[in-house]
């Protein structure tokens, strides 16, 4: 039995990747006990008992790091964790700091180093794109109205006005840009990004790097529909060698370690690939890759546990993912357990 703790089990309208990862593990060849690391008692993953065996409430990683580590130690003392899969950008810097200590305690993680994490930062995308011979749309970070005016003069209209974390709007003139700038700043804070508009379609490639430049399999999709926050809602699997080659160049360049999502746009007229973002983790739709035969969470756990793992990327194109909303009913006592005691057991571990 391998015990894997996974964060990001907030399978809500802006879903974290945790439930998809746990589902992938539960449907894999592994005999796995899954532990959900939640930050709120209403994260739906806590209550999805067919996938999540037990959940614990965690202190926010942005708060006291000592409390965060102590909570992990407490969970480890009960669960004897083998692997932690971190899925939230805000957690990663903390986990990068404590990964050696966790490894000494027998808990393994496959996450990027601080250097890798910094190199894929939105502000360094241009340099990274040049290093792997992939274009990037021109963009300027803005922290004031003056910045916005200068940025839009330089980039010209139409342009995209993007929040620091989520949401993007197409602005056709300064008045529109100003409206989006104020709306995004009020909701998400600064910096706001003014970005060149490139007409085309958005694609994602996901994979897992082993830290030496090799991948454990790649899986590509075209985004068919996205939510208002730009999250994938429906997607179709594709096979595009140019995209996979670009992704492999990135992996080799960074010697990437861990899960990742390579977000690109292919320009309609030229077919050129534009790098939009690199997320240092699996995305919320990662289960699609597992369902298509590229079970990246399984491969990551096998790699960490020194087990044999597949590295092929043999999957069928033309498979579509349809995300939907659903309801589950639980007794109020479950909510009591997670909110009062900070933990909820869905499936008791059988002791033989």
């Amino acid at each position, binding site marked *: 039995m391998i015990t894997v703790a996974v964060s990001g089990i907030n399978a809500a309208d802006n879903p974290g990747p945790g439930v998809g990862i746990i589902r992938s593990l539960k449907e894999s060849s592994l005999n796995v006990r899954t532990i959900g690391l939640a930050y709120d008692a209403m994260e739906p993953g806590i209550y999805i008992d067919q996938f999540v065996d037990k959940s614990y409430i965690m202190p926010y990683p942005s708060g006291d790091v000592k409390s965060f580590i102590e909570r992990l130690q407490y969970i480890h003392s009960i669960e004897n964790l083998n692997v932690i899969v971190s899925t939230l950008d805000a957690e990663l810097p903390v986990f990068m700091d404590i990964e050696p200590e966790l490894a000494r305690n027998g808990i393994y993680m496959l996450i990027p180093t601080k250097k890798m994490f910094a190199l894929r930062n939105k502000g360094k995308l241009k340099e990274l794109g040049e290093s792997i011979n992939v274009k990037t749309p021109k963009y300027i970070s803005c922290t004031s109205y003056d910045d916005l005016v200068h940025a839009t003069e330089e980039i010209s209209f139409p342009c995209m006005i993007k929040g620091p974390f989520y949401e993007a709007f197409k602005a056709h003139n300064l008045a529109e840009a100003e409206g989006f700038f104020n709306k995004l700043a009020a909701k998400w804070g600064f910096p706001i990004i003014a970005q060149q508009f490139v007409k085309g*379609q958005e694609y994602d490639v996901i994979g897992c790097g082993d830290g030496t430049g090799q991948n454990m399999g790649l899986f590509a999709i*075209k985004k068919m529909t996205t939510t208002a926050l730009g999250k994938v809602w429906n997607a179709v699997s594709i096979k595009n060698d140019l995209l996979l080659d670009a992704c492999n160049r990135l992996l080799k360049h960074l010697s990437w370690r861990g899960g990742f999502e390579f977000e690109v746009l292919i320009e309609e007229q030229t077919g050129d690939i534009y790098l939009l973002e690199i997320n240092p983790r699996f995305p919320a739709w990662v289960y699609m890759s597992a369902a298509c035969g590229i079970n990246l969470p399984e491969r990551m756990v096998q790699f960490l546990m020194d087990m044999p793992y597949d590295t092929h990327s043999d999957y069928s194109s033309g498979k579509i993912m349809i995300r939907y909303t659903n309801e589950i009913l639980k007794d109020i006592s479950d909510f009591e357990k997670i909110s009062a005691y900070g933990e909820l057991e869905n499936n008791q571990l059988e002791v033989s």
Partner: protein
Amino acid sequence: MQTERLKTLAISDSGFIFDPSSGDTFNTNDTGVHIINLLKQGKDFNELMDVFIDEYEVSEDELEADLLDYIQTLKNYHMI
């Protein structure tokens, strides 16, 4: 005519087309499927004209215009 990309398309009998490299989907009618399949076999424009002039009651000028239109549509979608 470059037909390499056309050869990678998945085309069903109903005229539903899926491009596995871009994820794009299209719909065409029976005649469109027939044209695409002939192009995939390597037929050139004149050979298409010969096939369709025999199959349809249509003047040569009208057929030429329609075929050119359809081929331009395939070009617009980067299929050829």
